[in-house]
């Protein structure tokens, strides 16, 4: 019946689409944030990760004695270890000369760090002191490092006031905690932060022999090692980081609230449209009731109307969501992308929204007294 009122139909669909887009964006940002916070974490070539119990997140990693990592070697399942230095350092933009904090990882160039096999080759470039590998997916505020490097220029800059040279590019990705990343050797790293206590590292990577149960080994190591170290599986390390952003910051809550707002706004719009539609056609519904149609079959009409609205409101929302994700990806370098779970959950939200509104609008239908039409 809405088809006879194209304006009202357009308003309804626009409203639903708007609500859908709002939910897509908010949930997309939220999930993107949680994904982005662990871009680097996912890349580590490790089964078990040792961190300090005082570390709360990637932006505030505390040190623990390197000895603990070597003690972990004693376990028969352990195949190899990599001590990693981890800190936020001030990088000077070589173009504007402004500084900005960048996530720096220091490791022994000979040791495996990431699962990415191309890194081993590039790591050799770091053996010379004062060389860094720059993350080309870092935000543009760090300067046109990647462009300059590809042009063949020698890119030099300062970190914490010390001169470094970009020896190569890697692709990691920005996160909410760090706008950019760089890799360097432990030697260079300690040189950049001279007051690091010797023998202190922030992250210890442990690789297990194939077939070992990481969960079990982690538990045993935790009980064997002193409590100045926390033993996590790789997944546990990822969860640890995501959990920080989810619970210790307001970000998760804000975006979930935003999505809820979209839901409520959509509900109100759909309810308004369905309600006024039912009201306008009340005499007709009453006529049908007088003819002997069941109330339920008339309610079915309203439900179908809601269902169609949901469907046709969702499609543009989905398309717009895709487009906006692309926009956000390009603008923020955050891994915001459509996934099936979100597509389905937003659709079910829209469906619930339309059905809820239809249900409320139906109460008007129950008022349709067939005796009134004479």
């Amino acid at each position, binding site marked *: 019946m809405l*088809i006879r009122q194209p304006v009202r139909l357009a308003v309804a669909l626009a409203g639903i689409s708007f609500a859908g887009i709002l939910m897509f964006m908010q949930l997309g940002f939220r999930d993107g944030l949680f994904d982005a916070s662990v871009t680097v974490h996912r890349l580590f070539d490790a089964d078990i990760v040792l961190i300090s119990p005082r570390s709360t997140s990637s932006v505030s990693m505390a040190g623990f004695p390197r000895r603990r990592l070597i003690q972990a070697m004693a376990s028969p399942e352990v195949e190899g270890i990599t001590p990693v230095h981890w800190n936020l350092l001030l990088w000077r933009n070589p173009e504007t000369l402004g500084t900005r904090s960048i996530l720096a990882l220091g490791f022994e160039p000979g040791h495996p760090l990431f699962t990415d096999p191309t890194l081993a080759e590039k790591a050799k470039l770091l053996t010379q002191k004062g060389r860094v590998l720059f993350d080309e997916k870092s935000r543009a505020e760090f300067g046109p490092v990647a462009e300059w490097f590809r042009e063949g220029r020698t890119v030099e800059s300062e970190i914490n006031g010390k001169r470094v040279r970009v020896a190569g590019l890697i692709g990691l990705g920005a996160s909410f905690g760090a706008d950019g990343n760089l890799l360097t050797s432990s030697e260079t790293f300690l040189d950049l932060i001279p007051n690091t206590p010797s023998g202190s590292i922030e992250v210890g990577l442990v690789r297990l022999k194939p077939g070992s149960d990481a969960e079990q080994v982690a538990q045993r190591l935790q009980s064997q090692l002193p409590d100045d170290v926390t033993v996590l599986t790789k997944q546990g390390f990822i969860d640890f980081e995501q959990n920080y952003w989810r619970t210790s910051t307001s970000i998760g809550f804000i975006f979930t609230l935003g999505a809820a707002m979209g839901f409520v706004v959509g509900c109100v719009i759909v309810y308004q449209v369905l309600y006024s539609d039912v009201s306008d056609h009340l005499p007709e519904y009453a006529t049908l009731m007088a003819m002997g149609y069941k109330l339920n079959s008339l309610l079915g009409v309203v439900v179908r109307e809601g269902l169609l609205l949901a469907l046709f409101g969702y499609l543009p929302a989905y398309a717009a969501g895709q487009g906006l994700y692309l926009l956000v990806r390009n603008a923020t370098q955050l891994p915001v992308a459509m996934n099936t779970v979100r597509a389905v959950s937003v659709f079910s939200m829209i469906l619930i929204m339309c059905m809820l509104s239809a249900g409320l609008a139906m109460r008007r239908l129950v008022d349709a007294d067939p005796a009134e039409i004479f």
Partner: protein
Amino acid sequence: MATSSLTIDIQALSHWYGKGSTRRQVLQGVDLQISAGEVVLLTGPSGCGKTTLLTLIGALRKVQEGDVEVFGQQLRGAARGQRQRLRRRIGMIFQGHNLLRCLTAEQNVQMGADLLPNLGYRARRDQAREWLRSVGLEDELGKLPHDLSGGQKQRVAIARALAAKPQLLLADEPTAALDSGTGREVVELLKRLAREQSCSVLMVTHDPRILDVADRLVRMEDGRLYQTIS
């Protein structure tokens, strides 16, 4: 059952509107019997309760006092489901045409036929066309109510009421919105089609020009019925 030959059997029916001090009696002990296939016209000044009587017979309102039996079923205290099923056997034609605005003439008539059980879509559509042909609208099948004249709309409404194959037809001033020529035509049509289906007709009208189509005239005044033999 003794009353089974009667389509409508009303005994001492009274009805009130409002509550408390504003309570007003509109029907006072109405008795009315209509047998199968009879055409009865109900006249009377406006506000005397004609429409109320019609809605009570049509199972659209709850019976407050008295007995109303339609097709031998007692309506006093009938549940909603029972009244809804009963309404399927009663055709109603309203003062206004009450067609569904967004459906074509054909689809509107089909809405009536849709209530018949065990009929496929095609059969119902063919029936709808047949009915429109018998009311002389075979050329207007695809038109929306908006594009039809008043007389045509009323004829579509009649076709819709009859498409459900009712055994009782209630009409509330079906000619009110029509000029005398068209009104006459519509009523004649109504009577002829009702005869063919041996369906009882109870028609409320003010229109003195159509009184002669009735088998019987009933006059109502101040909530009481006066039988007139015509």
